[in-house]
């Protein structure tokens, strides 16, 4: 609102926008004919989606034997993909919920897209455990329903079952949070639309009018949902880490310290937000709303969480050496120097070393560097999960059962195809809904719009000058 911001804060909305211009800029992409770039991207995404559907069909038809999993290595690319997508799905809630509680205004430029990304990433994540079951038509066995087998209930002691509840709760809550935030903006689109679009947006916007009492409840609801989503997002990835930590595989105990796993999730999630937002702001021409200030803030989070993850890697190595316990030492030194040394190398260089570039302000504000870095982090975090899951299994207790694992084309197809699913959903989203939260951006205009921040700055500057003059 009209509250005075600190003069050292840079503006978050540039281009001297008025309320009407904000509406126009953000609603335009949903109204015009799609650009050529969008059509090409969409065609590509749908192609990958087709590959995905084919690979799912093939897996279900042929069975899990179409993958290269074996007696030693029972979890490979599938669970790696699952954890990777879930991790990506955490940044949206972090941006929208935790930053809301911390009153970070830069959240408003990116929260909508980040939340959408969360939902799509969780959709992708949820597929992998289901496909991995082999007999996907029996997937409902994971829910405790009255059955004819006793009823024999599910095992509530199992972290895998906790995961079922955690992921489905997370998906539901994220969806509700996202959609409730979207309703006022869909009403904005509705009031600009004509004909069939008006009707459809009318249904989607739930009859929103902007009444003062509704706004009050809406803000109250957003705040409480944020308060609930914050421990929820931490619990979800903690439970994902329990999937491994509670097992009897030494290398999987690397996840026994959930905050490290959560930091990794935030790290990869922010990287994916950067990847998407850098493209979106350019293609949809939203550079006035997703500014260098936003990109820099997110890069700071990437630097922090990347370093936390790096410290955890190094601590593991140190403790395994310091313990002087040969089995523990083997588990970790095998990671770094064993047959899968290159995955460990990719993980270390992408996750620990490369983000250090962001100590430089110039690099944090460089869009090209940020984009390349975000891809690096995405790759690095995929390798991290692969290192934990597969390379540990490859060298288990009995040297006679040691084995190697390389994916088949079906597994590669499933992974690349899930990217197709993700991008198809995201590209549809940017066409039908406002990518930036219109109402929330309007509400920070008076404190973070450039024409207003300049005024504060001028005011402070003059005051300081006057004080100095009076001191003299």
């Amino acid at each position, binding site marked *: 609102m009209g509250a005075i911001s600190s003069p050292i804060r840079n503006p978050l909305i540039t281009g001297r926008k008025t309320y*009407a211009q904000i509406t126009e800029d953000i609603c335009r992409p949903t109204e015009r004919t799609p650009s050529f770039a969008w059509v090409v991207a969409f065609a590509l995404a749908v192609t990958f989606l087709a590959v995905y559907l084919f690979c799912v069909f093939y897996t279900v038809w042929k069975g899990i034997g179409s993958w290269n999993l074996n007696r030693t290595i029972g979890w490979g690319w599938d669970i790696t993909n699952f954890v990777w997508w879930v991790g990506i799905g955490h940044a949206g809630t972090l941006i929208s919920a935790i930053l809301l509680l911390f009153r970070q205004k830069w959240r408003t430029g990116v929260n909508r897209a980040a939340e959408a990304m969360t939902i799509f990433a969780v959709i992708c994540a949820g597929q992998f455990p289901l496909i991995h079951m082999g007999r996907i038509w029996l997937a409902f066995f994971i829910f405790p329903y009255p059955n004819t087998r006793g009823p024999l209930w599910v095992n509530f002691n199992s972290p895998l079952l906790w995961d079922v509840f955690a992921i489905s709760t997370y998906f539901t809550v994220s969806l509700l949070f996202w959609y409730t935030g979207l309703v006022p903006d869909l*009403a904005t689109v509705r009031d600009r639309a004509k004909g069939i679009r008006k009707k459809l947006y009318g249904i989607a916007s739930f009859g929103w009018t902007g009444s003062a009492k509704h706004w009050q409840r809406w803000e109250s609801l957003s705040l409480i949902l944020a308060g609930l989503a914050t421990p929820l997002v931490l619990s979800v990835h903690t439970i994902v880490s329990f999937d491994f930590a509670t097992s009897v595989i030494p290398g999987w105990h690397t996840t026994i310290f959930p905050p490290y796993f959560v930091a990794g999730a935030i790290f990869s999630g922010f990287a994916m937000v950067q990847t998407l937002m850098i493209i979106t702001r350019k293609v949809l021409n939203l550079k006035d709303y997703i500014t260098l200030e936003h990109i820099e803030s997110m890069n700071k989070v990437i630097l922090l969480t990347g370093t936390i993850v790096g410290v955890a890697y190094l601590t593991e190595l140190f403790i395994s050496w310091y313990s002087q316990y040969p089995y523990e030492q083997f588990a970790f030194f095998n990671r770094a120097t064993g047959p899968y040394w290159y995955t460990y190398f990719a993980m270390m260089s992408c996750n620990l070393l490369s983000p250090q570039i962001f100590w430089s302000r110039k690099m944090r504000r460089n869009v090209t560097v940020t984009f390349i870095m975000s891809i690096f982090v995405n790759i690095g975090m995929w390798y991290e999960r692969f290192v934990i899951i597969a390379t540990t299994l490859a060298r288990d207790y009995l040297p006679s059962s040691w084995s190697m694992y390389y994916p088949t084309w079906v597994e590669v197809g499933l992974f690349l195809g899930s990217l197709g699913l993700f991008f198809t959903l995201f590209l549809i989203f940017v066409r039908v809904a406002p990518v930036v939260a219109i109402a929330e951006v309007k509400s920070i205009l008076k404190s973070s719009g450039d024409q207003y921040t300049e005024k504060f700055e001028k005011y402070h500057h003059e005051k300081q000058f006057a004080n100095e003059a009076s001191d003299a």
Partner: protein
Amino acid sequence: MSNTGTNIIYGLYDDETDLLAAVKEANSQHLEIMDVLSPFPVHGLDPLLGLSESRLHVAGFFFGLTGTLVAFLFMTWSLGFDWQVIYGGKPYWPVPSFIPITFELTVLFASVGMVVTFYTICGLGPGVENPIIDKRITDNKFCIAFDASHTNHEAVNNFFSSTGATEVNQKTI
């Protein structure tokens, strides 16, 4: 809610500071405001309109409590009484193992319950068509509406012109 047949007089403002000043002025003139509509939440408006704090969080607490009880009691009943199985040498009633699911269902029940409550009490939902006073209210206009049958038209018109409303109209919604 379709048309209610209420006759209203409304004024549009260009800025939220004008709106806040106008609402203050209306209060001092004892004009009874029917509703204030805005493109985004205007802070400081609720006390001026005499809106009491939302009690959604109270509802949320009870929804959450329901979730806690449902999860904990169900797991206690199913594993502890209905079909007892020893998992990994744990007791039949492994309370620490119940914590994650109890927490998740607490959050789930609280969130779903509150969202449903929110839409219900606001009278919003898929396909609901509320009367739209002016299309620009979701864009850049701030609106104060009076019930025309309960107010003195002259006083309201004077009020709008003195507080800087850019447009004043009358409409049946």
